[in-house]
């Protein structure tokens, strides 16, 4: 029983390295489907396009795609519901969009996906581009269950299952069983080394639910980004913005008098300085969570871009020394990304705790 978590962890890491081979295969197919461009320049373009595509959200959950001999694109995966708000709720399956190749009709309107964004078009599905290659078509409010939303939902369910079963195992005895054995030290670490030192023994309990959820959520979703599923939730600015917004709201809604006092009327400095400091401190309220959202977004995005670029190098070198070297490099980088996945979750949690701590800190000294 005691070895089980270790074994499953190893299994997880093994899976984590599989994307290398899967992505490599995909790139190969991409090369084949671009008969127009030949040579090294063409491959480079494809790789760049592929990485750009990977970083975007999509309306269906496709694991990989290939092209048949007759030029037909085959996507392996499953469609997800598209939910649009465009003069009323429009719901249809993303299979209607055919990965941007077809026009979907819903409630009398026509929609087409262009670079993974849905635009309202005419019946022929024309996308009008302006001088900067931006579509000028009407963009309806898109509340679709996209690949990322679906992943968030799955991670949420996974966490609910993991931690409620862990909670249940406490009812049988003082020590957790199974997964809880592995998770409990992490939960205790967050409590004893992140929450209590930063927030203080008096107030930390209020913030524990948020800190624990955000740590495990970011960690698990970062790790999922390293799997062959090809999901990458935390490199969407909307996701990190939502998380940072929660930190911002919790910080400011639980802040005490002394916190606001230190922002608008800094004690212990001359009157003139207080006036100068107030706008700076006020700006700080927004900069702190903003740094959170940019840090997480940039780290994960950069990791994905660099990792995929190095994998792409294999197809540019096309010789056994260069390709194997870039494979080794990609392997080392994938290991590093595993660390980054946990590190970013830790940093986000740590800094959130720090901001909460500042909000409830009691200044008796002045």
């Amino acid at each position: 029983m005691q070895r089980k978590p270790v074994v499953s962890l190893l299994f997880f890491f093994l899976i984590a390295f599989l994307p290398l081979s899967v992505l490599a295969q995909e790139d190969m197919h991409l090369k084949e489907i671009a008969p127009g461009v030949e040579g090294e320049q063409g491959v480079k373009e494809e790789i760049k396009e592929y990485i750009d595509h990977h970083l975007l959200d999509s309306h269906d959950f496709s694991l990989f795609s290939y092209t048949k001999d007759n030029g037909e694109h085959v996507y392996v995966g499953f469609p997800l519901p598209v939910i649009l708000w465009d003069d009323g709720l429009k719901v249809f399956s993303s299979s209607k969009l055919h990965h941007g190749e077809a026009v979907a009709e819903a409630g009398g309107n026509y929609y087409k996906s262009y670079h993974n964004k849905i635009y309202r078009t005419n019946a022929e599905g024309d996308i009008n581009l302006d001088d900067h290659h931006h579509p000028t078509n009407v963009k309806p409010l898109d509340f679709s269950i996209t690949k990322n939303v679906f992943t968030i939902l799955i991670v949420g369910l996974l966490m609910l299952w993991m931690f409620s079963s862990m909670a249940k195992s406490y009812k049988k005895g003082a020590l957790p069983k199974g997964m809880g054995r592995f998770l409990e030290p992490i939960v205790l670490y967050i409590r004893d080394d992140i929450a209590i030192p930063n927030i203080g023994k008096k107030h930390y309990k209020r913030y524990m639910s948020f800190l624990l959820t955000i740590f495990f959520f970011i960690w698990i979703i970062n790790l999922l980004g390293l799997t062959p599923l090809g999901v990458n939730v935390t490199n969407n600015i909307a996701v990190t913005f939502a998380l940072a917004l929660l930190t911002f709201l919790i910080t400011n809604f639980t802040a005490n008098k002394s916190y606001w006092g230190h922002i608008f009327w800094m004690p212990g400095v001359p009157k003139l300085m207080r006036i100068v400091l107030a706008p700076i401190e006020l700006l700080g309220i927004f900069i702190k969570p903003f740094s959170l959202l940019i840090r997480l977004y940039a780290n994960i995005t950069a990791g994905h871009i660099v990792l995929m670029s190095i994998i792409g190098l294999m197809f540019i070198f096309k010789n056994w020394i260069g390709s194997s070297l870039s494979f080794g490099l990609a392997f080392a980088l994938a290991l590093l990304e595993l660390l980054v996945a946990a590190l970013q979750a830790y940093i986000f949690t740590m800094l959130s705790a720090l901001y909460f701590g500042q909000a409830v800190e009691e200044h008796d000294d002045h």
Partner: protein
Amino acid sequence: MDKLINEFSVGLFFWQLLLFVGLVLLLRKFAWKPILDSVEKRESGIEDALQAAENAKLEMQNLQADNEKLLNEARAERETMLKEARELKAKMIADAEGDAQAKANKMIEQAQAAIESEKKSAMAELKGQVASLSLEIAEKVVKDELSSKDKQMELVESMLGDAKLN
């Protein structure tokens, strides 16, 4: 920056916010609260157990000290009891000896007194007999030897002289 703003998906933001807040609330109810409560309960249980063990140890020490004290008291009591018994024995012996002596002395005294009285009575009897004998002798002397005065006198004197010897 332009690209970032362009990429920002309101739908994803909405779902992330909704799902995450939901997740926090659900996990708080079904996971974090029970987990943290159980851990806290366990930790305080361990602390209490340690404290109890410490208390038990102290109590044990106290008990041992008490035992030692009791033992010492018992030992001292035994000593005093033995001492008292010994003293009692010595006293009893001494008393018995005294009594015996006194009794013996008394018996000796009584014997002496008896002897004395016997002696006195024997002396008195002897004196009586001596007196009657002397009277008989005197009668005989008077009868036989009162022929001459001189002889009488002589006889008297010699007889008196004999009597004195007694």
